[in-house]
């Protein structure tokens, strides 16, 4: 199986879906001539032309709205936000239009829209551009929210998202674009709403998604030396949540640590921790731990910036806590 980057995996998904269905098109800032701020759309303008790979003005609210309108009328747009921080300009379009139209039309309108872009802190981008905003989208019924953490999931989930008739917010990561991994060639679909056990273990369940998956893996390796086998579950889709996979794991391990790089209040992680605490109450040997980003705007100072985010060390500490080590 070829080993490619997360960025290439996304490109494959868009390319294959555009090839497969001519209603699929890509638009966003710098996606065409510049071939994407993060080079996800490299080569697509040359292959599909300016009708289907469209550079937009710097107006997130407008071009997101254009995408919603196009989806209402039967096309399958992929809208790229250069970062999710810029996408905040378009929140009214997302929450009041994209998320509501199927519901308020009694199902007469379908909305096969994918809005995608990098989410979560990168490095040295300071408070306004280092935010993990998944909770804002996961909060809203009517949206689907996807956050792949591996190249294979990135490809399989993006293809499924493009084929889905609901608006899907597809959260990538600036620091993940260069991550490499095995990715199946050709038709490869990962279903939305299905979590994945990324590492099997019987002592503690670590639930995470997106970039912190790597910290979870590092933590699991460190914990092996202390005789602890951690099970790592990658949520992959934040809405709808695959609860069954979580509960089955916690029923075996009796201990649970949730890792979410977002702020802790009202986050996906805190919600998952609550779900596990409620639904696995009789299986738990310790209160569920949440490893989150610190509850502060991201510092620009690099040492503080790193200290404010989940790390392998913080995950190890949390695991020790739930295991009474």
């Amino acid at each position, binding site marked *: 199986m070829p080993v490619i980057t997360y960025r290439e995996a996304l490109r494959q998904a868009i390319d294959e879906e555009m090839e497969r269905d001519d209603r699929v098109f890509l638009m966003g800032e710098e996606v065409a001539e510049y071939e994407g701020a993060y080079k996800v759309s490299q080569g697509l303008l040359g292959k599909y032309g300016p009708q289907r790979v469209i550079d937009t003005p710097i107006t997130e609210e407008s071009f997101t709205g254009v995408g919603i309108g196009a989806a209402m009328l039967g096309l399958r747009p992929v809208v790229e936000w250069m970062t999710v921080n810029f996408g905040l300009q378009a929140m009214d379009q997302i929450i009041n239009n994209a998320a509501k139209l199927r519901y308020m039309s009694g199902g007469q309108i379908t909305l096969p829209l994918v809005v995608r872009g990098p989410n979560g802190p990168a490095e040295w981008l300071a408070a306004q551009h280092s935010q993990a905003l998944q909770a804002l989208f996961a909060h809203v019924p009517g949206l689907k929210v996807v956050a792949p953490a591996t190249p294979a999931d990135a490809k399989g989930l993006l293809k499924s998202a493009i084929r889905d008739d609901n608006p899907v917010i597809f959260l990538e990561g600036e620091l993940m674009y260069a991550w490499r991994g095995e990715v199946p060639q050709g038709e490869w679909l990962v279903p939305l709403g299905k979590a994945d056990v990324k590492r099997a273990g019987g002592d503690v369940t670590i639930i995470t998604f997106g970039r912190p998956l790597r910290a979870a893996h590092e933590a699991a390796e460190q914990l092996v030396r*202390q005789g602890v086998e951690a099970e790592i579950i990658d949520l992959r889709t934040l809405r709808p949540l695959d609860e069954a996979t979580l509960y089955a794991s916690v029923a075996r391990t*009796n201990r649970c640590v949730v890792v979410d790089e977002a702020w802790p209040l009202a986050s996906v992680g805190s919600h998952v921790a609550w779900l596990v605490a409620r639904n696995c109450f009789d299986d*738990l*040997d310790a209160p569920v731990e949440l490893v989150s980003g610190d509850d502060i705007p991201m510092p620009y100072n690099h040492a503080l910036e790193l200290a404010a985010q989940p790390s392998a060390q913080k995950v190890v500490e949390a695991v020790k806590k739930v295991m009474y080590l």
Partner: protein
Amino acid sequence: MAAFGIWCLGFVWDLEFGIWDFAFPEERTVAELIPMLALSPTMEVATIIKWNKAEGDTVTAGELLCEVETDKAIMEYEAPVEGKLLKILVGDGQSCGVGEPIAVIGGEDEDITALLAQAQAKPTGAAAATTGKPAAAPPLAAEQQPQAAPLVAAPQAAAAPSAPIPPPAETGRRAPVSPVARRLAEQAGVDIGALRGSGPGGRVVKRDVEEAAGRGAPLAVPAGVPPSAAAAPAAAPAAAVAPSPQAAPPAALVAAARASAAAPAPAAPAPTAPAPGLAAQVAAAGAPAEMTEQVIPISPMRRAIAERMTQSKAAAPHYYLVIAVRMDALLEARQRLNESLGRKISLNAFLLKFVAEALARVPRVNATWEAGGGGGGYQTIRQHGRADIALAVALNDGLIAPIVRDCSRKGLLAIDGELAGLIARAQAGQLRGEEIENATFTLSNLGNMGIDQFTSIINPPCAATLAVGRIARTPVIDEDGELAVHSVMKLTLSCDHRVIDGAVGAKFLSELKALLENPVQPALVVQL
């Protein structure tokens, strides 16, 4: 404009918060007796070192109320409820048993005469405190403190495991239990009330149940039990594996009888399908001994050892003096004494006696380095007027040093008798706080373990500790140049150089050596 709006909101919020803050204590007007809690698993009696609140002070739940010295360490007692500290029933330096009321917390100007009378009337009240007897805690703690569980807040624990066996009588509260531990205990028939939790605040967690089930498994058909009795567990398999630290078979049978009488198996235990962890534990119990990596939780005693030793080694500049002592004469004298008394006087009793004598001759060794009080920063040396000598006693997992007070004024027999009692109670975990506090000198003897000589860490507040090696038959060049075989014991004195200079320590050791080598010293004989 927007900023102004936010500022306004903030102001309103603060105001509301403030009102809440004031309103809350006033709504709470029912005064409560605050009981002494078991702050360590083995604690029965405790001494209040210092109240951090005075009568009339307002306390909030979780705030430090007082410092309590248990059998193992000084612990912080946090206020279980909020209100006004209306009355302190057990003052600074006073002791009381677990479950006895130590204070009353309630509302402003509340009439607490009835409560105080109740506290007096309790058979477990203040009077019992002076006897040092453990109080029957459950009634007080359970009836009067339904919502107060400060150190281990777990109201759900009061819902009780379904096991019909009552909680151990010596604790006044139920320890919290993790949900899965509760479920596994029910499945394995482990009596959760009898477990000592290793989690935070004494929480009974999964591994505690697994360990109990592992220990209890062999009891399913206890050895030495008549066949008819051994058959009984089959009727109540759950109870048969209940852990029973002492007198296992009878306790297990009692538990079995209670279980079958009181609980007509509401949820059938499933001993045939225990959790995987349990199976592994049971399997491991039968396997030959092998080294396995373990993570061992820190007991209060281990924590106390760690803190005191680290602090001592860091604060006191240690140096060590070694001296070899010929013990032939003393051993001979001891043998004669033993024969005449018809009983054995322990060597440690001799050592304590002679050390006390040497301390009287070099009193600077019997001292404590004191950081000056009053915030002035000056420091003093307290040279004690009494030789209160501690002897380190090894325990299963730990160490404790009970003290024989005033060894100079006691005879050998008295010292020996006291020592035997202290060692027995130390090993049974029954020492009281006052029996381990404020030694003036400490002795540690590893001779019976075959150790020739060793250095010890000074046991604070002492300024010196004596490490005693074994008595070995050793070739020695005598004073007249002849090679002879003698019984030689090596003593190592660890000194705190802040208090004891090298020459002073050396003087003490040479005095001690002279006394031990020439036991026909009047001190011994006269005081017998």
